[in-house]
């Protein structure tokens, strides 16, 4: 127990929590945008997985920048498939999402074995921590927040931007109208289908970026199904955060902290079975989700396709 207390006091733990929260937050932010437009996107997990794969493939080809671009594009590609099937053709959003998750696992695993001989995916150029001048010297807080890799800072900026766009711009207002009452929105001249497409593509880009973070920010390589359920954790975060980008930061941080504790315990060799610690983020997700469910109000038209008559 004293070893656990020791770990709990270190900046390293909270720094790791912020880092591990980032990919979950990015996916959650994307899902917030999509769900505000009335779209349930269960394919979030597949988008993250494809993003992680694209990140490694791109980085192998042309460095970290190329990895980020390719990973985001992979996420967007999955979003295009989701949009064509459900928004344009009216197929059930959840079933499409499930199909995309299954396909994503197969396709990324297949491509990894086809591109790299025998599936020996190399370690690729990855994201390194960059200190923010002056701020990183602040005791404790500097180590937690300001010695992170650039995508963490980008995620912070995106949280603010997401809040601004959804609550303070005309586009955000129209997107929310699509999620609450698409027929009325349509009758007011709001292009529901186009706005839903835009929201889903943004969601794909953000989830893809979250996936890039998993591969280039944490693992530095690709392994099968490496998204490890984080897309589904992000779905839970969206509900817990009551569809707010800012509260999603807090939700993601909670799960990041659980993961960080699990890894710290494993690394420090504390006498707790590390396998059971690795189950912690999933247990906490269930508990927190069970704690808030029923007391949240989702967008009224969530999950319902809109067909123009």
């Amino acid at each position: 127990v004293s070893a656990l207390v020791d770990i709990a006091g270190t900046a390293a733990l909270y720094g790791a929590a912020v880092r591990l929260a980032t990919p979950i937050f990015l996916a959650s932010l994307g899902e917030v945008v999509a769900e505000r437009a009335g779209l349930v996107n269960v394919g979030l997990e597949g988008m993250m997985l494809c993003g992680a794969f694209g990140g490694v493939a791109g980085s192998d080809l042309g460095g970290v920048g190329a990895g980020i671009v390719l990973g985001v594009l992979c996420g967007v590609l999955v979003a295009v498939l989701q949009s064509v099937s459900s928004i344009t053709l009216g197929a059930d959003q959840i079933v499409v999402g499930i199909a995309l998750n299954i396909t994503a696992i197969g396709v990324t695993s297949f491509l990894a074995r086809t591109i790299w001989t025998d599936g020996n995916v190399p370690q690729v150029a990855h994201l390194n921590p960059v200190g923010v001048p002056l701020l990183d010297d602040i005791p404790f807080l500097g180590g937690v927040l300001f010695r992170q890799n650039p995508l963490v800072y980008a995620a912070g900026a995106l949280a603010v931007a997401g809040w601004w766009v959804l609550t303070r711009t005309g586009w955000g207002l129209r997107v929310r109208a699509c999620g609450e009452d698409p027929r009325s929105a349509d009758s007011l001249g709001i292009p529901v289908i186009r706005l839903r497409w835009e929201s889903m593509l943004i969601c794909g880009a953000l989830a893809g970026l979250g996936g890039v973070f998993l591969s280039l920010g944490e693992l530095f390589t690709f392994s099968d199904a490496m998204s490890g359920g984080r897309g589904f954790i992000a779905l839970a975060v969206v509900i817990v955060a009551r569809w707010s980008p800012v509260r999603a930061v807090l939700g993601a941080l909670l799960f990041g902290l659980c993961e960080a504790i699990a890894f710290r315990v494993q690394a420090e060799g504390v006498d707790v079975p590390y396998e059971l610690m690795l189950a912690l983020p999933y247990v906490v997700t269930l508990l927190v989700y069970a704690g808030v469910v029923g007391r949240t109000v989702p967008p009224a038209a969530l999950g319902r396709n809109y067909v123009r008559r």
Partner: protein
Amino acid sequence: VSARAPAMRAVAARAFGGGTLGLAIRTAIALAGAALVGGLAVRLAGQPPIETLRAIIDAAVGDSYALQSTLLTAVPITAAALGVAIAYRAGLFNLGGDGQIYMGALGAVLVALAGEGLPQAVLLPAVLLAGAAGGLVWGAVAGALRARLGLSELISTIMLNFIAFWIVSYLVRGPIEDPLGGGYPYTREIPAAAQLGSVGGTVPVGWVIVAGMALVLWLAMERTRAGRHVKDIGEAEPAARFAGIRVELYMFGLLALAGALAGLGGAAELSGNQLRLSDFFSPNWGFDAVAVALIGRGSPIGTLAAGFFFAALRSGVEGAQGTANVPVSVAQVVQGVAVLFLIIANADVVVRALRRIRLRRSAAEAV
């Protein structure tokens, strides 16, 4: 040709409309599309598609040994898929097959190892029941969370998968690790009295059990009031509720039953194939099960058929490794794409657009 043309046109018109035949034709087109994607993937892997297909078919059903390994592969996938299918009929998405298989196999291995020395007539049924019970508990957790609190089973079953995996991973690396395993994360082999054999050396008993389950479930869905209620809930939940059907009770029961089926599949896999529990016991069968159930459109018989088909594909690709070196994941690709194409082929807008074409054509014919 001219004599056959009207008949051909009738078939085409049906494909564009609703009805069972239209559905069957659209399904065939979607599956053919998925096969095409599979062929492209094989080309991408640098293999000749036609020869590869022949090698895969050979390795899947070419002789009695091939058929046996196909059926063995089908056991856990189909068992879990039957659970997904019946829950799906009530509009529930059980993504928890993997966790339920692990918990089932855990229950089975604990009973099998504890019951060493018991006669087969006692031990084997106990092992299978323990498997069903283990899966049932895991499914019931998701069912209770859904029925009592309204927690989406989509999310809870995924979380339960990881929790089950880490529990098993912990146990097979510690408390129930094989002391003579040289550090490998698996248990001792289960005693012979707990092992499932095969009928006539070819058809695994596990598959016979699964096929029997499919038949029972089909009868239950089509011939009983409970089956009618399940379908009512899936078609219109508010109406079912209004009609006095206890929707929450059904949701709980269906997810628990789904878990029991997957758990039974895990037990049958343990005692009919792997004989040890490890933390690499299930290569993501839970997702295969979802794909198979969706391709079987939630019908137990359709699921049994789809389960055989995709087990043949997977077992065939694996068995053909020597002659045609294609990554095993090509089977997963085809499976996922097949689901996607099927949904698209049967999507609202597609069906309606096809029906419009059909109407226009018959109008033109009338003129």
